[in-house]
């Protein structure tokens, strides 16, 4: 694993594309937000025979925490000026998610779409996204959702930070830009909060608690569908060979997906209100729920 990672890092280092210039003085804030298009899991079913996701006819949405990341980016841009670029890797229909991001107010969108990208695991997804971020070049901040509701690994953000050699702060529930180019990040931990200061450029992953994302706006509809607003990049645009992309390059594979058995039976608790409540508390304690 570490050698695979090293190979990928070396590729990025050797490329003609450049890492962010950390010494650059910031007067505007250029933000990249990674957006994953995911099936609306509320409506996804798993085929009990093949154990695969039945995606047909299931509406696609922007991964919910990516909406939070985008909202955080838009709020920062409104307060400090700058640009917000939405970046996604996916099949051609992932363009829908980017159009929605533009409708929320992103300035520009980049879609990485190529058959060569298909089947990438988290490492290769992060690698490909990192390469695109290097091509975008001008950025002070990368915002990601903490995790995708379908893949659920929460790996892609931190892996991008690894590839680009950026400081990372995860689980952000609050952001505040300080003079001199650093961010105060409030991290939501299991039962405490942590405040971290980080120098930009940096990568932050945000949770759903950071804000309430705005709705996409009808005023932006016409512009968002304009081809000039969405760049579509292929493997060739990223100057990456097939051997470093997609399924073939991915060290991990999904062996099996299955729906956990939910054959739990309900149980009636008899008695008056007091008895029922007591019996319920006892049961919950026995089950270590409370």
């Amino acid at each position, binding site marked *: 694993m570490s050698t695979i990672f090293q190979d990928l890092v070396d590729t990025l280092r050797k490329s003609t594309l450049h890492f962010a210039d950390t010494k650059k003085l910031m007067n505007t804030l250029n933000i990249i937000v990674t957006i994953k298009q995911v099936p609306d899991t509320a409506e996804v079913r798993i085929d009990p025979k093949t154990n695969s996701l039945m995606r047909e006819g299931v509406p696609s949405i922007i991964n919910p925490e990516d909406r939070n990341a985008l909202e955080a980016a838009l709020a920062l841009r409104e307060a400090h000026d700058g640009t917000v670029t939405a970046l996604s890797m996916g099949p051609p229909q992932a363009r829908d998610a980017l159009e929605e991001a533009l409708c929320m107010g992103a300035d520009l969108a980049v879609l990485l779409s190529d058959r060569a990208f298909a089947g990438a695991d988290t490492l290769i997804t992060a690698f490909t996204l990192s390469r695109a971020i290097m091509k975008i070049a001008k950025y002070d901040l990368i915002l990601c959702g903490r995790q995708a509701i379908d893949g659920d690994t929460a790996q892609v953000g931190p892996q991008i930070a690894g590839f680009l050699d950026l400081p990372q702060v995860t689980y952000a529930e609050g952001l505040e830009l300080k003079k001199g180019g650093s961010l105060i990040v409030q991290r939501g931990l299991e039962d405490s909060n942590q405040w971290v200061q980080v120098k930009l450029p940096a990568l932050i992953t945000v949770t759903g608690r950071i804000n309430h994302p705005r709705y996409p706006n*009808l*005023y932006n*509809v016409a512009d*968002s569908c304009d081809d000039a607003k969405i760049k579509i990049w292929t493997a060739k645009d990223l100057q990456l060979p097939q051997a470093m992309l997609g399924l073939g390059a991915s060290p991990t594979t999904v062996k099996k997906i299955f729906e956990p058995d939910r054959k739990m039976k309900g149980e009636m608790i008899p008695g008056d209100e007091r008895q029922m409540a007591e019996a319920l508390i006892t049961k919950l304690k026995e089950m270590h729920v409370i």
Partner: protein
Amino acid sequence: MYSVHEICRERSRQFPKGFSHFIKRASMDFELTRQQKLARKIAREFAERELAPHAQQWDEEMTFPSEALKKMGPLGFMGISIPKQYEGAGLDGISYVLIIEELARCCASTAIIVSVHNSVGAYPIYALGNEQQKQKYLPDLCSGRKLGAFALTEPNAGSDPASLETMAEPCGDHFLLNGVKTFITSGSTCDTVIVMAATKREKKSRGITAFIVERGTPGFSVGAKENKLGIRASDTCELIFENCRIPAENVLGEVGAGLTAALGALTFGRVGVGAQALGVARCAMEECVRYSQERKQFGKPLASFQALQWMIADMATQIEAARMLIFKAAWLKDNGKPFAAEASMAKLYASETAMNTATKAVQIHGGYGCMKDYKVERCFRDAKVIEIYEGTSEIQRLIIARNTIK
């Protein structure tokens, strides 16, 4: 679309290559554009999150959805088809009907408030107003800072608006407005209302003029809010004008050309109301599809009984037909073609589809369908009202007949 001539030429050119290729080139395009799909998606999400959870309560308590409307202005819902230079969203007629349908699917009352505001509250100012009027009124209306209404109906002039009695007497640099308007949507909540009044009574329909009247103008007062069967969250009121002084610059369009203007505005309004009906019908059908699979009788889900399957099949068919009529009318408008008869067909068929669908939907729900806890009960009441406003079904048939029997 291709003319016959072009099709023939196309056929002679393409046929040797294979029939399917020719068919493809010459076929109509039923695909929505990316913009239209995006507009629909935005409206659907907003409606599901901001309207659906409250619609039942708003209906029951007759609560005007001001909070939701406040959010809708900045999102572009209040000037959907008006160009951006006046702070509209600049979308086409197809997007407009898609948006109204989505709103109505979750809350028919909000849909009619938005529809009235857009199509007869703001659009006539864009279509007929002079530049000064557009600059003065449209940005506030399109951004939702102000709400628009439209007042044609009177106690003695409903289906026959030419017989209206409200008078506007010229008096120096202004007009003196006297009369009563009835059943006015957003009557007590609007900021501007387009009022139709007779400037020359003896000329009947040609003596009617449209005025932009601002709320707060002395002599303009609002009567009681009606307690209605359906569409209960929209406020429907009587408007009273007593020696209300309207500056001459507030005449919309030509003096004496008001009724033509009003009917022109109502034409596209009707397509929007058709879309509202479609939303209600879809809501009722979706509820049936869900309920009939959950509810079991005789050991089987209701959906397995053929009698009920056929009801749902009819709903689906009529809904599809209504949608095609609405799209066609909106497409004609977008392409600058006459669409009066098609607008009436769309409104007529869609509102009757909503009524049929909702009636069957209550039936499929049995006793539960009569209970306020179930959406179909509200659909049933809302659908009935839609068959009446912006021209009753009879008046739509009258217009269609006039256009057909020539």
